[in-house]
């Protein structure tokens, strides 16, 4: 048993020592080629990241692009099949479309709702409330829970005889509906995930937006007041524009994160088949069904979707994000 730890410890020390040695050697080498002292030191210092960029990002990135055009089961060498994986995905794989719709639906609903809720809360907290630190702690608390714990907790909260159904039992009977089965009901699995997702990110977003609000210079409000601006008009003409770059950040981070939901989804065991996230689907294809080539193709489609959404938000941001430095 101890040998497991010894093996990794050896790997760890060898690789660490090799990195520092490489930094030292590259510095010597660059100096020998006549590179200035400052530049040589700079390159040597960023070397760990440069190696990482090639080995952990660019290499795997290119490799996964290649694999996406192959049939690969890890036991035999990859066989080139051209666009077959992509063609199968778009024409023959009904599960793919369901997964895609579910993942995007989750992101598109969850992120704006979380943003608006957090904006309202942060605005309320910014009204000179007493004991701000305590409020902030309480709101932020759920966001520090591990994703694994959050998922198990919500599986319990939303169990058919869990707390949510108990509390809302009278409401259900008032409207004459059965209590929902949430995660196991194809109709309700999306709302269930959204509830859990909102609870998880809400506090973190609130803290970020509150920091943004606190960062708005007071004199802007004083100036607006002198101009006779009312409270509401001040909020929409001063606060929101000044906060827009922070809102933009939260939006981007939220979209990228929610499209990649993995751990929570994996911990919610008995979901309806309708409720599978893209990352989980890729994992299942690669490591349960052993079709690594197809999984790589799915990964590339996912990357393109993330890029597309990011690009859309960036494009739209030109219309609504206000950067102080650009003032003409």
């Amino acid at each position, binding site marked *: 048993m101890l040998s*497991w730890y010894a093996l990794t*410890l050896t*790997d*760890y020390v060898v690789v*660490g020592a090799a990195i520092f040695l490489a930094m030292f050697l590259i510095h010597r080498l660059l100096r020998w080629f006549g590179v200035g002292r*400052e530049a*040589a*030191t*700079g*390159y040597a*210092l*960023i070397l*760990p*990241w440069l190696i*990482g*960029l090639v*080995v*952990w*990002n660019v290499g*795997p*990135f290119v490799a*996964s692009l290649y*694999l996406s055009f192959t049939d690969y089961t*890890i036991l035999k060498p990859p066989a080139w099949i051209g666009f077959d994986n992509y063609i199968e995905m778009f024409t023959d794989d009904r599960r793919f479309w369901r997964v895609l719709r579910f993942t995007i639906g989750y992101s598109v609903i969850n992120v704006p709702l979380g943003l608006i809720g957090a904006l309202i*809360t942060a605005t*309320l907290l910014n009204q*000179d409330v007493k004991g701000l630190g305590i409020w902030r702690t*309480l*709101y932020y*608390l*759920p966001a520090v829970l*591990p994703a*694994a*714990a959050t998922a*198990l*907790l919500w599986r*319990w*909260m939303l169990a058919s005889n869990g707390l949510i159904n*108990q509390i809302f039992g009278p409401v259900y009977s008032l409207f004459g509906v059965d209590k929902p089965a949430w995660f196991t009901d194809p109709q309700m699995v999306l709302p269930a995930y959204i509830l859990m997702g909102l609870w998880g990110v809400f506090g*973190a977003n609130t*803290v*970020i937006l*509150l920091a*943004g*609000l606190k*960062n708005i210079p*007071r004199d802007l409000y004083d100036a607006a007041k002198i101009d006779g601006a009312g409270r509401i008009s001040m909020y929409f003409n001063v606060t929101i524009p000044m906060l827009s*770059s922070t809102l933009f*950040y939260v939006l981007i981070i939220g979209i*990228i994160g929610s*499209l*990649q939901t993995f751990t929570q989804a*994996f911990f919610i*065991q008995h979901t309806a088949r309708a409720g599978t996230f893209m990352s989980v689907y890729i*994992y299942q294809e690669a*490591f349960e069904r052993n079709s*690594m080539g197809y999984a*790589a193709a799915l990964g590339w489609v996912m*990357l393109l979707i*993330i890029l597309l959404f990011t690009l859309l938000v960036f494009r739209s941001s030109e219309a609504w994000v206000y950067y102080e430095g650009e003032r003409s």
Partner: protein
Amino acid sequence: MTDTGIFPARKRRRQATDSIPVRVLIYTLLLIGVAIVMVPFLWMLSTSLKDQSRLFIYPPEWIPNPVRWGNYKEAWQALPFNRFLINTLFMTLLAMFAEILTAAIVAYGFARFRFPGRNVLFIILLSTMMLPGILTLIPKFIMWRSVGRIDTFTPLTVGAWFVWGPSFVFLLRQFFMTIPREIEEAAIIDGANTVQIFHQIMLPLIKPALLAIGVLSFQANWNNFEGALIYLNTLEKYPMVLGLQFFGASLSREAPQWHLMMAMSTVMAAPILVLFFLAQRYFIEGLTVGAVKG
């Protein structure tokens, strides 16, 4: 550093112009919000102390009667959680040390030294934050497999030497840039070399930022599920989070034992909650620094 509202740099008092009803409304709404946020959390704690026979009582019982601390012991002993804890601590400590040290070195290089291509490289560094992890996971798995390191702790620790968190580099670089250059120049005149300056002068100066990313790094490694799921197969090598998943899956085959699952969820969350109460400002600093900078 700009004021992120965390460190009480300046006190700003606004004359309370709101009328009493408005204040009452604000506090009422905030209280409702806190209730919504805290109910699931308290329900987790409450359930973890319940007797199995009292899980589904209606109306819901908030204070368990009887209080069963034994749930924690029972859950802990259902699987080799002692071993899982040792594994988690082993991997977390190794990964944290390498990750933070290399992030600081790289950030120092980007912040203080001029070299051709620096800005382009820094933009590349920022853009790697957007790469979905699952995309590069398959080639990485094949790589570790080809060097015979599947089902070892190596893939989950050694990679940290190559800067796992580009966001950490970004955060530390921001911090380095706030330190006046005169401090280093004085040290150079005294004959100190780059390693000495970095180790004896710069690292102590950026201690708050190191603590902020230390907290983030601890959280990320403690919770690292995806990597552990893919690289580890033997039960005795599992970290806590994978043990928890196995625990949940194996216990829910028949009737889910929610009281035990909530006990283990609480255990899983406990170190992070303790850290949160001890070092809250570093959590918030790490969280907000990217956002408020814009």
